[in-house]
């Protein structure tokens, strides 16, 4: 299953490398959102510093949702899902492969937003390990949920509006946990950032289990 998953991931990443949508379009938009937050908060450096963790995840949520949308639009166009089904690849491998590709793409997006938060909002990292693991856990949960709900909305005419409606409530706990963990890692809130990081890993594991079991059903006749 793993070689097939890597094959799917490589396919998605190769398309992304050629089109450069994540870096060329989504990342600049996510940066723009960070700037707009500063306008909304009247460039109050204290407020921006306090809210930096949450603003990071909101910006990642917005950009990441677009990446999920694109990941499934690529498959829906020209009936690529039918081709994947006929290729006899295990649906679980497709699920894992798309999750891995999305994890890398959202990760790249976060590598752009992260330094921007540190520079624009004048924040300082007090716990690098927590910050890194929280980012990995949040991105993993985002990617897994994104693939699971992305396939749910794929191939439907109203997918563009439906996907955020389905995805955002599911990702809200990730948003909350990610924000709290980042606030601790950035030294603006005393608290147990590790518990919140653990919660994100639990959410990711739960959705991975559901995804591995249900992806075949969702692909079938999709």
């Amino acid at each position, binding site marked *: 299953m793993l070689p097939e998953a890597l094959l799917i991931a490589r396919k998605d990443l190769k398309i992304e490398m050629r089109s450069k949508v994540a870096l060329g379009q989504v990342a600049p938009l996510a940066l723009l959102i960070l700037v707009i937050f500063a306008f909304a908060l009247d460039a109050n450096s204290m407020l921006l510093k306090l809210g930096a963790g949450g603003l990071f995840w909101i910006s990642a949520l917005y950009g990441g949702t677009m990446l999920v949308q694109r990941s499934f639009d690529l498959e829906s166009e020209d009936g690529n899902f039918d081709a994947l089904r006929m290729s006899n690849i295990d649906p679980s491998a497709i699920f894992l492969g798309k999750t891995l590709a999305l994890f890398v793409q959202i990760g790249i997006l976060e590598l752009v937003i992260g330094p921007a938060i540190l520079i624009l909002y004048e924040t300082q990292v007090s716990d690098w390990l927590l910050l890194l693991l929280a980012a990995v856990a949040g991105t993993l949960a985002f990617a897994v949920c994104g693939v*699971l709900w992305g396939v*749910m*909305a794929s*191939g*439907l*005419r*109203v997918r563009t509006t*439906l996907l955020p*409606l*389905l995805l*955002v*409530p*599911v990702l*809200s*706990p990730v948003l909350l946990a990610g924000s709290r963990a980042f606030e601790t890692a950035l030294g603006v809130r005393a608290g147990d950032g590790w518990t919140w990081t653990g919660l994100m890993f639990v959410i990711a594991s*739960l*959705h991975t289990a*559901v995804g591995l079991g*249900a992806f075949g*059903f*969702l692909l*079938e*006749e*999709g």
Partner: protein
Amino acid sequence: MTSAKGRSVKMTATPFTRALGFLALAAVAVMALLGLVVSPPDVVQGEAVRMLYLHVPAIWIAYGSFAVTSVSSLLFLRRGKRREDKGRHYDRLGGAAAEVGVLFTGVTLITGMLWGKVTWGTYWQWDARLTTTVLLFVTYLGYLALRRLPADPVVRGRRAAIMALISFINVPIVHYSVDWWRTLHQKASLSVGRRPEITGEMYWTLLYSAVAVTFVAVWLVTHRYRVIRLEEIRDEEMLTALISQRVSQDLPPVSDGDFDE
């Protein structure tokens, strides 16, 4: 209207559902009497406690409805393939129960906000119970949106069923949020294995209200199930009529271009 099997279907009511409807109406009238007149005001909450006779049963019914949706979704996924009708009745039951669940979650939120204004002095608090309940509400709104999409009914039903199963994870999170996190919301009034927080007339009024609201919910689910079936029959008949019309007009076959958006 005539069903696919030739049976005439004209309305959603039967003698049983009419009787159930009258029973539900009478039960709600008695509930209002018990809740507003017979039961005493609370020592701490005063008259605001009366709101709980609707607020608490409403969320119980919502949990129950979402549980029905999950079980019928599971049956739809497991047994649907083997049945001639693809298990559509499970899908219908899941949809009808989810609609009622969303309705009662809405009732819970509204009554809770009114109670909060009187007791806490504010309609809304960013408290774990309130926030998770809103997320539950929005998640199932998404489920209902997915069910309304124009797509093949079986494919749509399958996606909705999986979504229902995942969404149900939220229910225990909402219920136990008051135990897992520090919240402003009070602990559960009644809970298995724990002494009830209320006693006497208030306790019995709350239990009776749960029964009365259950009658209303069952009545609503039954009607919604039948309305969904009628909608399906209407769609099938419209499709059959359009095909007949096309055949009788002897029009050329449809090309791929006809479906371009």
